[in-house]
């Protein structure tokens, strides 16, 4: 289940972060908000998990 969800979480969070980066151009204090940091950390964890799963699958293939 996690393996199926993680790529989608990565896509959604990456879109979040792209939106924040665009907003930060107009409101430069955006990066200092805690919700941005939380999103970034969750995205990092999710993308790391996704990458680990991909590596494992690639090794088996």
């Amino acid at each position, binding site marked *: 289940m996690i393996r199926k969800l993680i790529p989608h979480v990565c*896509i*959604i969070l990456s879109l979040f972060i792209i939106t924040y980066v665009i907003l930060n151009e107009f409101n*430069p204090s955006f990066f*200092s908000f805690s919700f941005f940091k939380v999103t970034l950390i969750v995205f990092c964890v999710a993308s790391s998990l996704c990458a680990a799963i991909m590596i494992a699958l690639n090794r*088996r293939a």
Partner: protein
Amino acid sequence: MESNYGRNVRGRSGGYSMPPSRNGKSGSRGYGRPSNKRQLPIGLVIVIDVVIAALLLGLFYVTTYMIKSEVKPIETLPTPSAVAEASATVPSNSASTSPGESASASASPDTSAAADPSEWRTKFADKFTSGDVEKTDMSYKSANINISIQKVKKDNTTCYVADIYVADLKYFKTAFAKKADVMGNREMTDVVAKENDAIIAINGDHCVDNEGTVVRNGQMFRKPKSSLDVLVMNYDGSMKAYSPDDFDVDKIVENGAYQVWTFGPMLLKDGKPMTEFNSTVTGVNPRTAVGYFEPGHYCFVVAGGRQEGYSEGYTMEQLSQLMSDLGCTEAYNLDGGRSSEMIFMGNMLNQQASGRRSTTDILYIGDK
């Protein structure tokens, strides 16, 4: 012939050494088995992800910015008289402190009555009238307040500098949008100024959407400090900017403070201009700043920006230099960009090229 993929993946279900099942097919839960379940096209899956992301962002926007979240004051901070009474009841031996303790105390907000606000009227007597009100487009003079505004053109930027004298601290005020006793509303700066009969007003620190300590008119609305610099206005009329490391919020609770703003950064260090700031927004922008000369004497500065040929805006370094050139001993940057506005007698002095933004709070001078 069995494909390699099927064989490899089959190993997942029970380890690489797991033999094939009796019927020669991969394990019952193996990924190698062709699925009869119809899968969505990859493009559609990604579109669904994008839609989910958009919905979540919309939800975030609505909950953060559209649904009003009012914050009530969490406590009323002690006034200088209350602190004096409390200290009078403390045994005299507690007055002696070690050198380390005294150094620590000096970093905390000063609520001493060294500069008694009641003396300001005498000290700045030549700045006030005997009772009449004298008004022009760029000045205001009454028995309690003296405001003179200068339009300064410097570094391709047009800025408005309001030199302010008040006869009592009660004329230097802050207010939340909608004239509310709670933090959380938003209105245009000129509307908030009008609601509060402000003679001159500038936008505040946009405390609702920021983090960090918020004290307004002696009431604490948010206690935890953030990573931003802080400006404290004491009951003696003095102002002091603190870096997050130097700021002790418990001292504020203990000793009281009239106002605490969290936005920043501080613009002067020991009265000298700075080159490095506790901010990521140091480029050219419209700016709002408050400056402090001495108790009873302050300045509001608003610099326009994003208007090539008229007013490009200031970097933080340029703003710091300007505040130093004005002679301020403390200066602090407030919310800028589209929030930057100076309202004098109901009129907005600066121009906003990229549209205006509502604010949550203002700093203002009022005669009532």
